[in-house]
């Protein structure tokens, strides 16, 4: 059994640790946290990393609202936080646009909102924003594929996207397309799964059927990747290589495995919300980010989207999340 009892959650979710004087206890703060339903590994890791981060600080009480994919419910959660008068809110909205208004309301009520991952449509709705780089992910994946196939303009490239209606999916696809354009390739086949194993398997099975010969596949999401790999296995295909997305520990182990079709994955940090919690604490306590010269927490933090390959996988495995 390979998915052995996991090391404790915080180990899996934290990278190199720099202790600063900011970690000294300050004023007691209550932070409200709301995120979509943890119905897949990455989102689960988001929540557990945020909780683990809050545990580290005795001056932080994290009020976690149940994860939900219903914007109506998520709005009511934020309304609840406003009503309770929490000191800060960390919000990973199911739909950035739909939660903007209630975030604005919170800001107007004097509660700083830290926006994570899916961006609000108004700059006034968040005190600070922590973003992964979705477009950058697409670019990284596309660039990697270009490096491998650049000399073959007829190469067949397939894309297995995530939930199509999310802007982050659209950004990833755009980045991917732009990067491929640069080396004269294009996306020959594209399906969209739903971030679930089952949909990943189903969509990939159909995709493989449709394309008898493929050179490279980019799969947006390593959670659905379990299903993607199963479908590839079921079809007995291996003429291509697969690039993953998000960076699950499982995918990294596949990269280590010589036999596997998986050659690389693009990190999309599952520690974003943990960063959000840290920033929320600093904002609430009126502190500043210690490694910056400027005063105050920055408006936007965009995290780096590195490519993990066999060469550097050892380095990234500790921060890989379990699907």
């Amino acid at each position: 059994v390979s998915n052995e009892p996991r090391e404790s959650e915080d180990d899996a979710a934290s990278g190199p640790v720099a202790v600063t004087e900011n970690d000294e206890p300050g004023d007691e703060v209550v932070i409200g946290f709301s995120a979509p339903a943890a119905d897949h590994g990455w989102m689960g890791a988001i929540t557990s990393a945020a909780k683990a981060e809050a545990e580290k600080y005795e001056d932080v009480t994290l009020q976690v609202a149940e994860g939900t994919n219903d914007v109506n419910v998520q709005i009511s959660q934020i309304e609840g936080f406003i009503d309770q008068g929490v000191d800060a809110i960390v919000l990973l909205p199911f739909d950035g646009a739909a939660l903007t208004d209630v975030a604005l309301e919170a800001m107007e009520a004097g509660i700083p909102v830290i926006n994570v991952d899916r961006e609000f449509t108004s700059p006034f709705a968040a005190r600070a924003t922590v973003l992964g780089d979705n477009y950058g992910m697409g670019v990284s994946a596309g660039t990697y594929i270009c490096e491998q196939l650049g000399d073959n303009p007829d190469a067949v490239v397939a894309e297995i996207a995530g939930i199509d209606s999310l802007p982050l999916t659209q950004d990833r696809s755009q980045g991917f397309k732009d990067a491929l354009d640069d080396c004269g390739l294009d996306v020959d086949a594209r399906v969209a799964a739903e971030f679930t194993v089952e949909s990943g398997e189903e969509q990939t099975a159909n995709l493989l059927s449709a394309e008898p010969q493929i050179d490279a596949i980019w799969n947006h999401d390593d959670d659905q990747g379990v299903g993607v790999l199963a479908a590839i296995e079921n079809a007995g295909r291996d003429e291509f290589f697969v690039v993953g997305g998000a960076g699950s520990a499982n995918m990294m182990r596949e990269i280590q495995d010589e036999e596997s079709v998986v050659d690389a994955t693009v990190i999309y940090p599952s520690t974003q919300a943990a960063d959000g919690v840290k920033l929320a604490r600093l904002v609430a306590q009126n502190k500043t980010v210690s490694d910056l010269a400027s005063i105050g927490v920055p408006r936007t933090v965009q995290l780096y989207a590195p490519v993990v390959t066999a060469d550097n996988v050892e380095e990234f495995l500790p921060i890989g999340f379990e699907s």
Partner: protein
Amino acid sequence: MSQRSALMGPALRMGGLVLALVLLVVVGVATAGERFWSTGNLITVLSLAAVTGVVSIGMTFVITSGGIDLSVGAVVGLASVWASTLSTQYAAEDFGWWVIPLTALAVGLVAGLINGLLVAYGKMPAFMATLAMLAAARGLAEIIAGRRTQIVTVEPFFDVFQSRPLGVPAIVWIFVVVAAAGWFLLNRTTFGRRTVAVGGNPEASRLAGIKIKRHTLYLYGLAGLTAGIGAVILLARTTAGSSTHGTLLELDVIAAVVVGGTLLAGGRGTITGTVLGVLIFSTLTNVFVLNNLDSSVQAIAKGAIIVGAVLLQQWFAARERVTAT
């Protein structure tokens, strides 16, 4: 005596629901104290209940008539998308904010009428006709929205629907008004009487001269209309239209209506019960959030509440039959 029992029955049944709600409130106060029992939080509970509540009123009519509408969630999504397209918003800028709600209502109504046509004139089982509409409306919504969330920027729209007359959000007022109108319609008008009759015995109703096809058409139209109102509320709350709005709403709505005491087989419907059913589920969600509890546990609690409520109703119904003499 028989008159008394005719009044006692429903009263008893309502009693069970009120009891359940009070119990939840007690748990809420006990576990979350002031955080639960504050005006702000109670308004939050009501605001959350508004969409489900409004749509449940329409659904109460459909279920009372012996039908079912699985498409309401998808229609909410479609109406929200249609009412927030760029062209709708341009029109709203030009002509007035009312273009947006009007579009949502019209889309809901038309979708409902199509359901009604299929059920009444196409003689399709309601379950299948509205299942087909569920699939089609979601698909259409995605195509119209191009799978993007459409942000509404028509300020006058929000001036109206995000206002708080007497300190209570407009959307809560909408819920209250729709529920009151629904109660009146079901209990005090010929439309309501026909609905109960059609649900109780369609063939007898037809032979008594009730135009059951036309009435069925209206009923699904009404359900669609309330879905349109639900879309307006969601637009006001989220400031955006999205094809994912209302996902799985139909299940919540049906659960609330039936838990409220409306017979799934038709022939008996109660708006008061529906409102209580909606409030029970939305209070449940609230209590869970306030206590930092897992949504998985909440799902199990929800299942248990459905089972408990329906079994309790059965028990009341049996008792009632005993005392009915």
